[in-house]
């Protein structure tokens, strides 16, 4: 069992942060990698990102948005409760190198949780790092302080204009790309539509763009192929080949459809959970 040692509720109760004891995963975790967890015997296996790790304490911090049954159930857990399984670290770590120009790290919604350790990795490698993080509204914005610490320049956007730039992360991204022609790398992580627009924005500027995908997975060790995605016309498994890919090559249409494969079942499961916990 993997004990929960700390919990924080963020973004008006829609986003939750749990610190979990998983020493052997924490020891190995690198930026860009993820875990799979299962809450209890009847639970499903879901992939989640590790926002932080503490090797001395042997803990991992996961941040997730409540979107369905498993995440809703996860959000009801308190310190002292435990998860039946935490497996990882899975996937390939981010390829981080020192560039002779700025790296722009763009995050939307809970995608910022995935983005944060990667941003930190780029900063620690000696890069000039520009961060752009956005949310629908100010209260939904997460990890602002942490992102500020690991960037040279952090821009904030909100869809409703309640904080920072009124508009989308891609507005600010485009503006920076127009102002500076020395940008060497863009990392875009967030909801699928946002990642698609980040890639569309960078394409005319010919800036390499990495996205981190979060499709449906089961075993997450390459055994089942549930997470397959088309990249550059080839089928890849996100769990072992990814989760990061060249965003300009990703078939986002296919990814969007595949993410909706169990939409009816997910609804049913969530409704039953809400009835039980009403």
């Amino acid at each position, binding site marked *: 069992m993997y004990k929960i040692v700390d919990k924080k509720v963020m973004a008006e109760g829609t986003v939750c942060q749990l610190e979990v004891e998983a020493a*052997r995963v924490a020891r190995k975790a690198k930026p860009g990698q993820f875990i799979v967890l299962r809450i209890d015997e009847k639970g499903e296996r879901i992939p989640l990102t590790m926002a932080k790790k503490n090797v001395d304490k042997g803990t991992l911090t996961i941040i997730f948005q409540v979107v369905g049954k498993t995440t809703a159930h996860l959000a009801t857990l308190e310190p002292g409760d435990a998860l039946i399984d935490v497996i*990882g670290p899975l996937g390939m770590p981010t390829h981080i190198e020192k560039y002779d120009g700025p790296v722009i790290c763009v995050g939307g919604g809970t995608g910022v949780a995935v983005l944060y350790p990667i941003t930190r990795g780029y900063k620690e490698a000696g890069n000039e790092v520009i961060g752009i993080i956005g949310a629908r509204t100010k209260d939904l914005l997460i990890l602002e302080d942490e992102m500020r610490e690991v960037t040279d320049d952090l821009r904030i956007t909100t869809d409703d204009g309640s904080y920072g730039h009124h508009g989308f992360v891609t507005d600010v991204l485009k503006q920076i790309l127009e102002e500076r022609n020395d940008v060497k790398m863009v990392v875009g992580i967030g909801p699928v539509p946002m990642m698609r627009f980040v890639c569309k924005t960078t394409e005319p500027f010919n800036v390499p763009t990495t996205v981190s995908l979060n499709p449906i997975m089961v075993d997450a060790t390459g055994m089942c192929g549930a997470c397959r995605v088309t990249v550059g016309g080839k089928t890849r498994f996100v769990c072992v080949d990814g989760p990061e890919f060249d965003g300009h090559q990703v078939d986002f249409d296919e990814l969007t459809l595949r993410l909706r*494969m169990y939409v009816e079942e997910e609804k049913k499961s969530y409704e039953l959970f809400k009835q039980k916990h009403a």
Partner: protein
Amino acid sequence: MAEKGKKKIPRQAMPEQDPKVRAHNFDEVPYGYDEKLAQLEAQRCLQCKKPKCVEGCPVEVEIPQFIKFIVEGDFAAAARQLKNKNSLPAVCGRVCPQESQCEQTCILGKKGEPVAIGRLERFAADYERNNNLVTIPEVEAPTGKRVAVVGSGPASLTLAGDLIKKGHEVIIYEALHTPGGVLIYGIPEFRLPKAIVAAEVDYLQKMGVKIETDVVVGKTTTIDELLEDHDAVFLGVGAGLPLFLNLPGENLCGVYSANEYLTRSNLMKAYKFPEYDTPIALGKNVAVIGAGNVAMDAARTALRLGADTVKIVYRRSRAEMPARAEEIHHAEEEGVQFELLTNPVRFIGNEEGWVTGMECIRMELGEPDESGRRRPIPIEGSNFTMECDTVIVALGTRANPLIPSTTPDLKLNKWGYIEADPETGATSKEGVYAGGDIVTGSATVILAMGAGRKAANAIHEYIMGNA
């Protein structure tokens, strides 16, 4: 009984669930022999002095001896006799391809039907377990040696049992959350009840084998790290990467690998959704591509999940189908249809990205190919569309690169499988042994067990400094 009398007894069938009923539940299909049937069948055995059946068994089970105990009514002794050579008789009695092994070489089979060795094996093992007669064998004095076993399928379970008895410390590292490997995630409940696998794992644990689940070797730890605090490592990880056809539309929703479909149903218990959280597509018209045991398992699972039609789509003819005869027979009885000499060309989907059909082409058989089977050749212009809302691709597996990619000094063959000595399981890396599907490619439970046994002997010699 005189030999003549023996020959008059017909091969005894196993009572089983009615096909119409069982096609809608996940309970085991055969009920197994009762004591009377088992003794009747056991009497058919001629007790050959030079038993051919034993030669047909990859782990050389002492077949006439265990059958003799059944004739005498000492069923627990029969089970113990089996376990001398086969640590998983309840499993093998259910999933071994007996018709191409022990029963194929049974002398009775020359003129009539062979002794039902598999059914007798299953009976003895079940009798012992169901009557709580399983005894935990004494293990030898501790040697102070530690062996890491990666994966917990049939090769690893066999090896772990052998090494723990010799007094070594044995720790199994399993990537999934339940030990048993393919016996848990691959083979369905109606063919191999999970309680039987759990009992076998429990037996090993009672002997002292330790099992750590949720450890993905290659990620959570590496072979080199394991070698730091273990005297040897055995890799019994299976061939865990599904093959796809690489045809247009293969990533449509509703197109599964058999690995995914069966893992959802077996390991995650998706057939009990929403009691269990993991969902699975409940297709009305299901096409399964391939005709091996895994394809039969997937097809029969689809029926039980409520499909109206389930079709096995296979590019060769009935004679070449690689599945066990009993699986094909059971599938057919339950209503699985066979579209033979048929091959998919592309998958067709709707606006929501769901598969709605499969364009296929008819095939004919030409000259034998390198596998010795007649090569299927497409018949030009014979294309047609098969309606389906779920497709399961059951074409086999290849080697998962997780361990090789983090163990550069582990030599692989050209297909990506680990190179290992067929007699000892020794790999190119000192102290590292391998066996089962990760060495041979997709094969059978019993062959993996045979490899586990050989590697156990070799590891024992190696860590005791005799090799």
